[in-house]
């Protein structure tokens, strides 16, 4: 009985901590896929998997990193299944902007979201983790299962690409819209932009 109670207490603690992570999971997921509805689907998948694997989580370690790995894997699995095609919906982005009263502000945020979706998934993830999520390079590398140097490179290249895209005009953004070009074409276009 005591053991069962202890187990229930552990589950309660786990769930409480998991609940506090949800906003971060939603933010990360939305940065990865650019769509709020799909992001929440990903978060639910991650929550389910995290709950199933709760016995493997070591209390006291970083649950945010742990759950981000789970969410990232769910995203990659969906990408491999071609469920997610990276289609950026500018109308949807505009509707979901948090500060619609500020027209210029809204446009800039919309541009940023569009530019984010033009990055390769690896760079987008790196920029989200380090630039927005506040993870260290080491933590981000752990989440993305890559070397620290690789993560640094992805962040640097992602930043350069984003800056180039954000400097560019709207016509260029449309020209390189993700739905219109292949992944390879997109990377080549980004490299061209970065060189200039």
């Amino acid at each position: 009985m005591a053991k069962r109670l202890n187990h229930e207490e552990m589950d309660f603690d786990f769930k409480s901590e998991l609940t506090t992570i949800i906003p971060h999971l939603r933010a990360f997921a939305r940065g990865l896929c650019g769509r709020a509805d799909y992001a929440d689907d990903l978060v639910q998948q991650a929550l389910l998997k995290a709950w199933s694997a709760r016995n493997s989580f070591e209390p006291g370690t970083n649950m945010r990193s742990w759950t981000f790995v789970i969410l990232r894997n769910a995203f990659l699995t969906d990408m491999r299944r071609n469920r997610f095609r990276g289609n950026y919906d500018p109308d949807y982005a505009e509707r979901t902007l948090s500060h619609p009263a500020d027209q210029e502000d809204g446009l800039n945020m919309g541009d940023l979201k569009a530019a984010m979706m033009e990055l390769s998934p690896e760079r987008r993830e790196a920029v989200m983790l380090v630039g927005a999520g506040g993870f260290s390079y080491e933590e981000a590398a752990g989440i993305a299962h890559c070397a620290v140097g690789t993560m640094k490179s992805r962040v640097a290249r992602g930043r350069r690409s984003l800056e180039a895209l954000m400097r560019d005009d709207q016509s260029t953004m449309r020209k390189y819209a993700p739905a219109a070009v292949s992944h390879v074409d997109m990377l080549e276009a980004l490299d061209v932009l970065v060189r200039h």
Partner: protein
Amino acid sequence: MDAEIDNDVTSQNEERATRNGYGLTPYPSPFDASHLDITAPKRLNRLSSNNDATGESLHLNCPQRSGEAWADDLKRMYDEVLVEKIPDEMVEFLRKLDNGEAFKP
């Protein structure tokens, strides 16, 4: 060339920090991620943009938004989601985790 410019910037930052008496980190160590506060360092903006010989970021002078601005936006984009209310469906989903209902298709 870039390395030389970096060294110049580093030494300039060190001098400025000493002169002004505040703790400006001149250059991050390989294991120090504090410089990743991308809302702050112009050094990274400079590195990631078209530079002239002076090391100044050319696009900072143009009327469009600077690199710092989009970095702010990126952080804000993330932070805005943090303060959003968690959807009721997700709260319900959490509740269902307890009794295993969430695992049913």
